[in-house]
């Protein structure tokens, strides 16, 4: 019955893609309703975690959108930001407080933002950051399948991005694939902040993590991993674990989510 509801829900959504799915109704932050489902955790031997239906931005937040945010909120400008909220490279590719300059394309995702800044942006426009479970749930889709994490071609495509060197300029949002849910750029454009990015801590010594936190994380191919083949997920967990909430890096941006009710 639930499955049926989900299917109907998806069909309805597909027909209304990009039209009225966004509860905010603004053009630049289209959202899509992601129907309830289960996310197979990378840890706890692949224990399933229920993800309630929620709205997710179709695209990552762009430089242009973030500029509006800092215009309205002076304390988040480059020169005003407090060190505890963002490190020295905050908005490093922007020319100045209110100018993007040549290195930050208006339509490209905003990067060099801290978790604090991303969270503040989301709250400012009445949204929130997606959880790891929500993000990973949506990211497990391929172009036409809801769950494709074991698809060798998909894994290869994602790994190829991880192991290519950083682009000189990050391309505009929407320049990579649209997935099953109608969401763009989950892979191949940037890394993205999640609300609870630091809940699955990798200590930095990945090979020992299995002993330290048996149920959370361990090195590739280890016994407690749900899916040792899911290299892309290992790398995302690894990346998230290297972060602190005030860190900003060149390839790390974010998108927003919103509760269904």
């Amino acid at each position: 019955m639930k499955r049926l509801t989900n299917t109907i829900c998806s069909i309805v959504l597909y027909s209304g893609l990009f039209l009225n799915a966004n509860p905010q109704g603004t053009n630049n932050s289209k959202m899509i309703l992601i129907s309830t489902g289960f996310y197979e955790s990378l840890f706890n031997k692949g224990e399933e975690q229920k993800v309630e239906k929620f709205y997710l931005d179709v695209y990552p937040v762009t430089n242009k959108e973030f500029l509006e945010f800092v215009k309205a909120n002076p304390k988040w400008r480059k020169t005003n930001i407090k060190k505890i909220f963002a490190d020295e490279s905050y908005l490093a590719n922007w020319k100045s407080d209110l100018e993007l300059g040549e290195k930050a394309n208006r339509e490209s995702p905003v990067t060099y933002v801290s978790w604090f800044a991303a969270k503040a942006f989301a709250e400012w426009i009445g949204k929130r950051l997606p959880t790891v479970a929500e993000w990973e749930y949506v990211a497990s889709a391929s172009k036409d399948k809801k769950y494709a994490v074991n698809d060798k071609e998909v894994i290869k495509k994602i790994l190829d991005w991880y192991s290519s060197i950083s682009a000189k300029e990050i391309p505009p949002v929407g320049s990579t694939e649209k997935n099953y849910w109608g969401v763009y750029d989950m892979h191949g454009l940037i890394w993205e902040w999640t609300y609870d990015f630091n809940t699955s801590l990798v200590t930095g010594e990945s090979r020992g993590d299995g002993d330290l936190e048996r149920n959370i994380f361990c090195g590739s191919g280890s016994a407690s991993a749900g899916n040792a083949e899911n290299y892309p997920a290992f790398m995302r967990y690894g990346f998230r674990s290297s972060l602190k909430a005030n860190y900003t890096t060149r390839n790390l941006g974010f998108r927003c989510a919103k509760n269904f009710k």
Partner: protein
Amino acid sequence: MKRKNQKLAFVFLFLVIISVIFILLYPGCDQSYSSQLKGEERASLTSAPYVPPPILRNHPSRIIVDLETKEVKKRLADGVEYVFWTFGGNVPGKFIRVKEGDIVEFNLHNNPTSKMPHNIDLHAVTGPGGGATSSFTAPGHTSTFSFKALNSGLYVYHCATAPVGMHIANGMYGLILVEPKEGLPPVDREYYVMQSEFYTQGRYGESGLQPFAQQKAEDENPAYVVFNGSVGALTGDNAIQAKTGETIRLYIGNGGPNLVSSFHVIGEIFDKVFTEGGTRSNHNVQTTLIPAGGSAIVEFKVEVPGTFILVDHSIFRAFNKGAIGMLKVSGNEDLAIYSGKQKDQVYFGSDDEDQDLFSGPLNLKSLPEIDNTQHINNEYGLDPIELGKSIYTTTCFACHQLNGEGMPGVFPPLAKSDFLNKNKEVAISAIINGLTGEVTVNGKTYNGIMPPQNLNNKQVAAVLTYVYNQWGNSGKKVSEDEVAEIREKKVISMK
């Protein structure tokens, strides 16, 4: 008499006291080691094949090491590129040299353009993760930790960020030498060589940017096995050098990620091997085993000039996957140690039943096909002379020698070769179809067999054009069309 003795004793005592005071006041004259930590210095790091100079101080110091992790796109072989993850911009990572008892302050910087977080596990570290737990670093950040170099030896370091295998497979390893308190005996030259494998989607030589192949890594089936990070990093102009009479010390590491190396230098015997990079030395060793994530220090004196080839003696890795390096030794011949070829004469064999094995004409068609296909895709982005050189130095030089001088009585010379210069068609045919029977080159007769080479038209044209433009030859050019024509004709009569 007694008084005289007393006087002498006093003088002697006086001298002893003076010298003791002298020694105490001038620690520089004292070769003994003081364990007190003194001074601070920045470690000078070097890229392979170079090694930082020996550490001459006789006390431990605080050493500051700055190492940057960086993801770069570079050459893996001619026409082949790979995205390497590196310690310091090159594979292998920078060579670090410290002394036993030193306090090492380690700053790991992760370049802002990195996609990945990285860390470092130094096998020289006593502590959890070998430093990995304290050096996990996001892009655009720096981690600092310190350790005391308790044990001397030659140690591998590598990245240990999940997925560990992939970080190592992409090039994240290097060597750190902890010199013993008393230092290492002086030698004339020291070099840094590190073996490792690369797992690419394409097979050996397939051109273009080659992505990492997870499945091949799991199967331990690399496309490349190389010294110092790429095919040819230690050959030709990049060969390491020495002079006759010198003693060489090689610091050899094996980054793996999977294979164990059978390290060997053709034509040399290691006088001394510190097996596994430890304290014990073995003597008179031909081939030493170097585990993945392990090392060895080998020392040998070079007595005679020539090119000595470094190989992984798991030999297909050397001749088919790239594990070749060169040590070029210049200086005077010592004919008592190595004479060179002294004689060449006809041999009839013994009068037993095996005789008939040698009778009858050798049929070229029955010779096994030699697979040289690894060159086929090498031409990407290369001008013909470069391509020709690259083919010559991998395919032809083993017989015709590096400078086309050949081998008296066995392999005809290609340098200033009258035969070659007047028979272009035969030369093309020799490469495509092989060449057997008597030929006269520069007035000397050769009667050998050259097997056909599995090269495509472009490669044949390139290698011949290269040869024609070297070593006093006629400067002819050979085109692909000419090669194609000969390939059509099949049979070429000799003039």
